[in-house]
């Protein structure tokens, strides 16, 4: 149920993201969504990709530093206030979000958000009890 996110260290300089993406394109890896967190001179690229393990191996072979991180993909109604209600439940359950970002594609009439919780197992348990649809890895990235 946990989704493997690929986290990649990059210097904040022209061409560096390009080089990393080229490595993945050459391996025929599709990026489903991508977000960048940065400070002035470096950043962390976070991606959901089709073949995370292969992507990590390929990037490491090209001397990039990267690591897999477990995150949860949660389905939300694509309606005003639905994220708010989700966050209210997280707060009530005392679940800390380290970061989150949206998925580019909709699934039917639902939106998908990626959440990195401090404690993924507790979060998963709570969310299932609350009736959230936590999307399975296989439904999200295939294989």
């Amino acid at each position, binding site marked *: 149920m946990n989704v493997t996110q690929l986290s990649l*260290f990059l*210097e904040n300089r022209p061409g560096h993201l390009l080089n990393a993406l080229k490595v993945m394109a050459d391996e025929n890896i599709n990026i489903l969504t991508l977000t960048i967190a*940065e400070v002035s001179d*470096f950043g962390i690229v976070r991606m959901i990709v089709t073949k995370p393990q292969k992507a990590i191996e390929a990037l490491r072979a090209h*001397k990039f*530093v*990267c690591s897999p991180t477990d995150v949860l993909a949660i389905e939300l109604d694509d309606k005003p206030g639905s994220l708010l209600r989700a966050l209210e439940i997280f707060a009530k359950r005392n679940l800390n979000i380290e970061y989150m970002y949206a998925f580019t594609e909709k699934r039917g009439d639902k939106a998908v958000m990626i959440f990195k919780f401090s404690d993924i197992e507790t979060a998963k348990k709570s969310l299932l009890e609350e009736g959230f649809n936590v999307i399975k890895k296989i439904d999200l990235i295939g294989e």
Partner: protein
Amino acid sequence: MFNKEYESMEVKKLKELQLERLRWSLKHAYNNVAHYKNAFDKARFNPDKFSSLDDLKHVPFLMKQTMRDSYPYGLFAVPLEKVIRIHSSSGTTGNATVAGYTRNDIEVWAELIARSIVGAGGSEKDIVQDAYGYGLFTGGLGLHYGAEKLGATVIPVSAGNTERQLMLIKDFGTTILVCTPSYAVNMADYAEKKMPDYDFKKTKLKAGIFGAEPWTQSMRKEIENRMGIDAYDIYGLSEVMGPGVSCECSQKSGLHIFEDHFYVEVIDPETGEVLPEGEQGEIVYTSLTKEACPVIRYRSRDITRIYRDSCKCGRTMIKMEKVTGRSDDMLIIRGVNVFPMQIEAVLMEVEGTEPHYQIIVDRKGALDDVEIKVEVNEKIFTDQLGVLKGITERIEQRIRSVLGISAKITLVEPSTLQRSEGKAKRVIDKRNL
């Protein structure tokens, strides 16, 4: 001990031996090398009247520049037909310096290396993998002849081709690795990244003798832990002989200087005044037995301390501390003296930071600006930006409190800083450009 008679000689007898040999060496230099004749005459120093070790302070220093100016054979004291080998420094910072060796010089050098290997726990039963560069550089051939003299089995692989180095360690049953400390770290990195099944602990490797560049105690710990060995420091300089001027013993606390062949003084690098034993300064070498290229009061620029203790290993020879820097590596940053080694020590102290770094000094307006680039590796990388940022802040803060300078830490991608299998290029000083 390889040569117990000399290595554990009573200090009083040792000093008598030094005086006797020094008188020969001074006369040999004076009579056969124009530079020494001119310099001694100018200083009104008469080597025939030399009667006490203390008198050496009246003898002029030999500067590195003089060596460069004497390129190639200007300081040779014997005709070339007596010289059986030439070595030379890399000459990256000016003209190369050239050293010649007579047959006897090579014999002495080999013995001193043999003593060093024994100091590091080696014997004729060991298999020594010599991964110093072979060639003009003194490391490769120096260790080679010494290991042979001891009767150990030598694998003359030279530097480079890391994968083969690791394979040889495993397949040939290498017990002692000799190379530069930065290359040892490279090997450990390589094994970890490219050969995940490689386990140093399953090899027969038990010790490493590392030298040719300064390294820190924390680097020693890192190499020892990662390779599962004891790491010993060997020291030397091609101008004086090559590696084997001094070497650590089982105690790993200070390097015994082979005083039956070298007389050492520590001076204040500013004034040239000889400092009492135990004070830190620049170490100055005088050769006692060298035939081809005697050196009299050679200013090494290496900063250290010399002291005599009663070492548990039984050697009576004076000790020097691990060299903490070179007076010509010293950076003066906003008026503060900084040695790259000190920065390295801070980086090592911050957990997981391997010493792949580069110090870049530039001038912004009237102020010196320091940037330290540190390569990120799998060990320190985390998905959390705040934690990564925290590492840079911790390094900055430690550098401020330990060295008294502020430096900007920049994390860079792995393998982007210049690597070397010889000496590491740690400093880029753009201020003079």
